[in-house]
């Protein structure tokens, strides 16, 4: 799941060096996510993991995203 998520993060942030990301990386402060990238990541996660966002989730770190996916992913 982590590798699949990293792939989506890379798609949303094409200039990011994902090898420098880890579970504790903060999406905005460390990885440079802006609101458009967060939205792209959300849309990609809906397709890739079968989740559905009814409201914006407060993801601060990569670990927060992973925890959410572990609870909600259907794929």
């Amino acid at each position: 799941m982590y590798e699949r998520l990293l792939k989506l993060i890379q798609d949303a942030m094409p200039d990011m060096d994902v090898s420098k990301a880890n579970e504790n990386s903060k999406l905005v402060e460390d990885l440079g996510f802006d609101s458009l990238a967060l939205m792209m990541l959300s849309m990609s996660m809906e397709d890739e993991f079968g989740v559905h966002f009814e409201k914006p989730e407060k993801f601060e770190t990569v670990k927060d995203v992973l925890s959410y996916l572990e609870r909600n992913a259907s794929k």
Partner: protein
Amino acid sequence: MKHTIIIDTLGSDNGPEAILDGAKAVLEKYPEVSLTIVGDEKIIKKHDLDFSRVKILHAPDTVTNYDNPMLSFYEGKVVSIFKGMEELSKGNAIGMITAGNSGAVLVGAVKYLLTPQRTRPCLAAIMPNTKGGYTALVDTGASIDVGVNQLHEFARLGRDFMKKLYKIDNPRIGLLSNGSEPTKGNKLVKEAHKVFAEDKELNFVGNIEGNKTLSGLCDVLVCDGFAGNQVLKNAEGMAVNLITEMVKYAKVNHEEEHIMPLIGYLMKTYDFESLGAGIVLGIKYPVIKCRGSCKKEAIATASNVLINLSEDKNIYDGIDDHRK
């Protein structure tokens, strides 16, 4: 009807009436066009339109400049921009025109109109250049902080856009910098210069300085969204200032008869409104983002652009270009 165009009536500085005036002009000018008008149904129905060619999508909510577009998406409001894009995503129209919040346009584009390649959308503005042609400025504000890969993507999207719309075989790509030499620029621009130069599929003509943006040295001028937004607004501001000064001079010196025709020419040439505003690149269907202050002429021009796009014509066929 041959074409359907979606028009979002909310979010403009001049209120829905200005956009609806534009919708009326479109219906009068293009008998083969039908419209899907999105916004407050009550306001739309009050307007003098040929409703036999109009479908109304009721979406009374808007995203203001003080709202977070992403939060607005999830708040349960019926936002006209999002409603229009949802309709567009079904393939029910040739494109959409909106003067609403730029951030909301991009959020909607990501939600409904992403390509299978998941390209991050960007905004292109078409600027008239002194060679009698047009230069696409990419990006004008969708991505403020970018890296080399993103700039490279802007170059490719801009190239494809100018190829398709202006029938330019091999559009010239320029990179905005503070000097024409490859060694000039910040770290990002210097890196981008190398990548652009190595890409054999790009007709890269090198760095373009800020004072040459309207010189027609390139067909696509690439920069990050922060710089692009400044270039665009600075050009507009400078055009307005020059014209204002000329009008003052003409009046004080009683030279109106000689100078006013020139002023009229300049106002037409640098009327950014009538050029159809910005176009969102990198998405499935075309979306034209008019300026918040746009008037009916901009809506008519944008419709013309969408029709030409769908018919694979040159983008400005049917628009009187007084420079030629």
